[in-house]
């Protein structure tokens, strides 16, 4: 009888515990529901559907029609013939490969300078961070004024110094390209700096975000390491190369990955400065803009989805490559 009472109590306790867990789960799900709904409706569903659409012909108006690999074949064909997406890939690569390393080099340099114990340090820090809080649309319009080849501030200053004045957003020329090496490219006062180089310059304007992270990381480096290096006779450059830089590599790696993703997905500022079409002469037609025009101007949603998946794959490969190679240069401390 006693045994029977004990097992009944145990069952009752287990049932109470189960009800408690169930109620707890419902409460948790209730609180998380806005996020869960958002995740399912705005992320998972579009993610899956865009994969399906990339194998379809779909114009938003009529139902999607399955066409197999046709969209991917078109992408392959364009890459082979150097048209369409090939152009966008070149423009995107050019922008990312110049803007990301430059923003890292300048960001680290600036953070190192701003971490020095100087008068007005906080004012300089604020000034360099300030551009990061300006909305991208306002900053883009500001840069269009600054880089106006006829009477923009930048060219006015260059002109008053007797220097040559680039055409910035008005020219499809490229500083880093085979064409720029020809003599003709430099003739008629028309050296090859153009729209993409102007975009790179624009991107450096917002590097304050990354600079703040470097500043925090530099502040976290133990002073004892610098003291030890100083005792060993290391000068400022040696201390920077042998102490600061190795200990910053995890942060540099983080900013490298984030910067790469951001630059490859850049859209708003490019849409604004390129008349929404990659002007002049497709020189600012990056992948995200090509995707947008394909989807919403040419009503080619299936092809645009394939472009989105190509972009996803390229970013995945680039990120994997960075992670793989990071073992060689990122300092992770003593394990």
């Amino acid at each position, binding site marked *: 009888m006693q045994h029977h009472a004990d097992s009944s109590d145990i069952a009752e306790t287990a049932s109470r515990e189960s009800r408690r867990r169930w109620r707890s789960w419902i409460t948790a799900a209730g609180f998380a529901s806005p996020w869960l709904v958002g995740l399912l409706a705005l992320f998972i569903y579009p993610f899956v559907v865009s994969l399906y659409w990339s194998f379809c012909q779909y*114009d938003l108006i009529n139902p999607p029609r399955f066409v197999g690999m046709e969209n991917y074949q078109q992408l392959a064909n364009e890459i082979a013939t150097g048209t369409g997406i090939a152009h966008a890939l070149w423009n995107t690569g050019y922008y990312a490969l110049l803007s990301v390393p430059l923003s890292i080099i300048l960001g680290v340099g600036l953070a190192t300078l701003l971490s020095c114990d100087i008068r007005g340090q906080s004012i300089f820090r604020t000034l360099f961070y300030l551009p990061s809080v300006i909305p991208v649309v306002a900053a883009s319009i500001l840069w269009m004024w600054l880089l106006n080849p006829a*009477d923009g501030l930048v060219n006015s200053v260059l002109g008053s110094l007797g220097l040559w004045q680039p*055409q910035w957003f008005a020219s499809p020329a490229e500083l880093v390209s085979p064409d720029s090496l*020809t003599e003709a490219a430099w003739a008629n006062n028309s050296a090859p700096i153009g729209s993409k180089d102007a975009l790179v310059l624009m991107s450096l304007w917002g590097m304050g975000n990354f600079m703040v992270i470097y500043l925090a990381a530099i502040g976290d480096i133990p002073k004892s390491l610098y003291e030890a290096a100083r005792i060993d006779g290391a000068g400022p450059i040696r201390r920077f190369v042998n102490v600061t830089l190795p200990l910053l590599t995890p942060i540099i790696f983080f900013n490298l990955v984030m910067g790469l993703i951001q630059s490859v997905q850049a859209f708003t500022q490019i849409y604004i400065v390129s008349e929404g079409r990659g002007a002049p002469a497709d020189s600012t037609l990056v992948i995200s803009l090509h995707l947008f025009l394909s989807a919403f101007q*040419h009503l080619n949603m299936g092809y645009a989805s394939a472009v989105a998946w190509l972009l996803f794959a390229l970013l995945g490969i680039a990120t994997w490559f960075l992670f793989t190679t990071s073992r060689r240069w990122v300092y992770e401390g003593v394990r």
Partner: protein
Amino acid sequence: MNASSSLRGMLAIALIAVLGIGLLASQQWLTASDVQVPSDREEVVFWHFWGGADRAIVEDVAKRFNESQNEYYVRPIAMPGNNLDLKFFLSVTGGDPPDLLNIDDPVIADWGHRGAILALDEVATPDEVERLQVWLFPAARRLVTYENRLYGVPNGLDIRALYVNKTMLARYGLSSPKTIADLDHIAETIAPPGQSKPYQHHGYLPDSRRIWAWGPVFGGRFYDSSDGQVTLTSPEIESALTWMVSYRDRYGPSEIARFRHGDQSLPGKTFPLFAERYAVVMDGQWRVHDIRAFQKSQAEKREEVTQFDAIPLPVPPGGKPNAGWVNGNNFVIPRGANASRGAWEFIKFWCGFDGQEAAAAKTCVAGGWIPVSQHVVDEPTFQQFLDEEPLFRTFIELAGSENQYPVPVIPGAPYFNNEVKNLAESAMSSPKEPDLPQMLKEAEARIQSQIDRARNEQ
């Protein structure tokens, strides 16, 4: 978990539910219109892109239409900005499109081909369609005809002509150009090539986007509708592009880019002709209003009043007179519209078809728009307007010309439009001597492939 924490969880869920319901309920209030549609009328929902002063004109047309009606009631909804197309697609996909839409991109054929808009013969009677074809200017008819069916009606035409600063030309002993050679002479006289300092003035500089206008002037066509072939490599189009690129050779791509970009920084985007940056500029009929305001301002300041002219694009040997590129804003009726018949009645009222020319003339005068039919032009109200604005006459004469062509009305037209502009832009800004025949050949193949694909869709 105790009872109180469980209660708190339930309360949180209840609060979220109340907030959700509240948001849904407020939608009704937030989107409620202040327009009261009479109960005995059928509502016609009209989406358009006009903002600013033009919006008031649109609303006045709707008001006049509503006063003239006892069956339909038009409710205009302004959607200025870039995303009207996207909103439209979503409304069609969602099954709740407007009854009438006004667009200004070359998308008629694309949308008609995909079944997003109705052909006019699905709404109007065969007799109405037949009479409308004759009633419209040829340029207006071309803008909305796809595979021999009308898919909309333009509410006004955009025509390009050359504006000439006659006072500036007189200073150099020059007069308005009649031929391409005259235009080149003006350019070289006012801005002699090889100047070492940055140019402050130019006689004329071709804008790469205007290849669509110069192509027909040189006697060319971009597309042959009889066999569906892109004809960019035709000798006439190549001649037009070669002539435009000759300005690149004369002044250098850098100078052209620099000078053109400077136009954008003029205060309030002032018409560059006023600042004497150019002596001759290609632009649309809306500049007539700006010129009038500028001259009035000069007179009020007791300054010498600058004299202007508006002339057809000058023609090269073998070219076509009164030719150019026509564009327009078009009324289209979405498939699935609830009040398509009411939409058609409003289109007729606005454009002046079926004996409503007087009302249309009033609308065109108010907006400074070019009518789509000679019958509206002939109205006394519009003739009086032309007497007051003589520069506008040139645009009206060009609107009636057989040689005004739009971007080909075919599926894939937006791509065609962009690629042709890009081609001319690349040629004119190339740092190397451009190989025009090769560039035209490559662009032709690329565009052909894209429009074949667009045509075969659905």
